[in-house]
């Protein structure tokens, strides 16, 4: 009885796995095809030429560089902001702390879709249009609510006794926080960095609206513009760029899957 169910279960899982993987067939095959189209087909001649072309072309390198600047910058800003904020929320009790935590949680449900119009007006006023620093700050801000919660959770797992021991040994409070607690909360910093990088790396709407300078658009917008052009697209090049775009996201995901899953599961359990 159970054996038969097991086969049915495996059949269902195989079907779902095929459904999950099938769309990637085109991206992978076309990126290795010297004569790629929008359709899935086995390359007549296999080649890495598309990848070489992306790195050789000024446009391709520019897109990759821009995405790295945005994602790298946002990650740095996010790590600093959430490490400090998470530490304060974890270690100090002060009036309004609980309300603040809940408020941060509530802010999480506001997506860029709902704020993009005033964000555009604000960015215009601040001179943030078509600038790296403006994009970096906005991209970091979007991930702050989730990041602060995660960092607070990680600091909570570091016993305060360790810090107190350091004070007794003569270390100042801030010194103890940076020298002793921060290294122990390392996985948390990693998780916050991951969230910041992934969020900024994948973001599409905000650069679509705030960046019009062709030399400053990230990969996401570059893919969109190429796709919209449709008739004169080098599909092999586009697929190769997609593969390059996937790789950091995938590597980060594999490296930090466990940390991320714990954090997300924690988000569900509320701990």
């Amino acid at each position, binding site marked *: 009885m159970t054996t038969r169910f097991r086969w049915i279960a495996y059949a269902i899982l195989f079907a779902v796995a095929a459904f*999950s993987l099938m769309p990637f067939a085109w*991206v992978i095959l076309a990126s290795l095809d010297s004569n790629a189209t929008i359709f899935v087909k086995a390359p007549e001649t296999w080649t890495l030429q598309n990848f070489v072309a992306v790195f050789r072309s000024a446009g391709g390198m520019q897109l990759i560089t821009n995405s790295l600047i945005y994602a790298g910058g946002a990650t740095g800003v996010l790590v600093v902001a959430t490490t400090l904020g998470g530490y304060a929320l974890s270690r100090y009790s002060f009036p309004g702390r609980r309300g603040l935590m809940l408020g941060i949680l509530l802010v999480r449900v506001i997506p860029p*879709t709902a704020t993009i119009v005033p964000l555009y007006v*604000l960015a215009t006023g601040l001179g943030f249009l078509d600038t790296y620093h403006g994009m970096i700050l906005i991209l970091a801000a979007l991930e702050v609510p989730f990041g602060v919660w995660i960092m607070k959770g990680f600091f909570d797992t570091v016993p305060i006794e360790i810090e107190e021991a350091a004070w007794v040994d003569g270390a100042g409070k801030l010194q103890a926080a940076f020298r002793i607690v921060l290294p122990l909360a390392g996985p948390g910093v990693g998780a916050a960095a991951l969230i910041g990088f992934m969020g900024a790396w994948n973001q599409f709407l905000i650069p679509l609206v705030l960046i019009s300078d062709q030399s400053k658009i990230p990969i996401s917008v570059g893919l969109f513009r190429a796709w919209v052009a449709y008739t004169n697209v080098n599909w092999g090049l586009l697929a190769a760029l997609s593969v390059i775009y996937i790789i950091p996201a995938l590597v980060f995901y594999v490296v930090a899957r466990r940390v991320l899953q714990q954090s997300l599961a924690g988000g569900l359990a509320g701990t």
Partner: protein
Amino acid sequence: MRRVRGWRDALTVVGFLSPALVLVGAFILWPAVWAVVQSFTNRALTGPGAQNPSFVGLANYQRLLSDTGFFGSIGRTAVFTFTSAVIGQTVLGLGIAYLMAERPLWKLRLAPVFAAVLILPLAVPETVAALAWASMANGTEAGLINRMIAPAGVGPVSWLQDHAMATVIVVNTWRGLSFAMVLFLAAFESVPSSVLEASVVDGATPWQQLRRVTLPMLRRQILIFLLLTVVTTVGIFGLVYFLTRGGPGSATELIGIYIYAQAFQFFEIGYGSAAAVVLLILLIAGGVYYVRLMREEL
């Protein structure tokens, strides 16, 4: 945790919190508040409304009330969210996670392999996901889906023209399914096996065990996931916009795309803001419920 004592502690807390609070305040809260303010003006991206926006009271909201395009987008968002987030991701995700979860009398040895494979749709950026689906769902005979259904004598079907809504629903289900599955898998495996064994001893059938023991224990976690995924799906933009740009016609114009079109294609900042305020109210209503669920744990 320690109480804040003296000005040095107070300064530390304020100083440590301020970068995070300034970022959230400036780029999430302020725009949200400003959307409300602008929604009462006739601000535009170009023309006289750009230089001198004036206060127009509730005119934008009155216009929304008689705008079939706006109501259409709300209705489509509701359909899209219910089918792809509630049924597609949550219900399917629960089912698949239950197949994979280890419990007394049930263990699939290959489950971890599947868990690793199924996560891929979520790990890739949404623009690549959309591009990959654009190839899959291509309306000519050479599109992959059309080639798969051709042996059955069906098609070719112009998926993104004739069945655009159904297609984007499938795509969003595809993308979010793995997230649901991973979280529910962890949730199922957190149910103590002693409880499940006890139910077996008491003679519960597997179905009764799921209905009466497992699901009630996970009720809260399921509810929280459901809220988060509904809120995310209501605010979706990139995945759908990339594939269809809201079309054909307005067939897939969800609320997020409607707001974008009003503000950046028709240049009506004030009117677009009013639509955004409606979206904000919907999302915050969901968010308040979410916070209430989470509050017990704080």
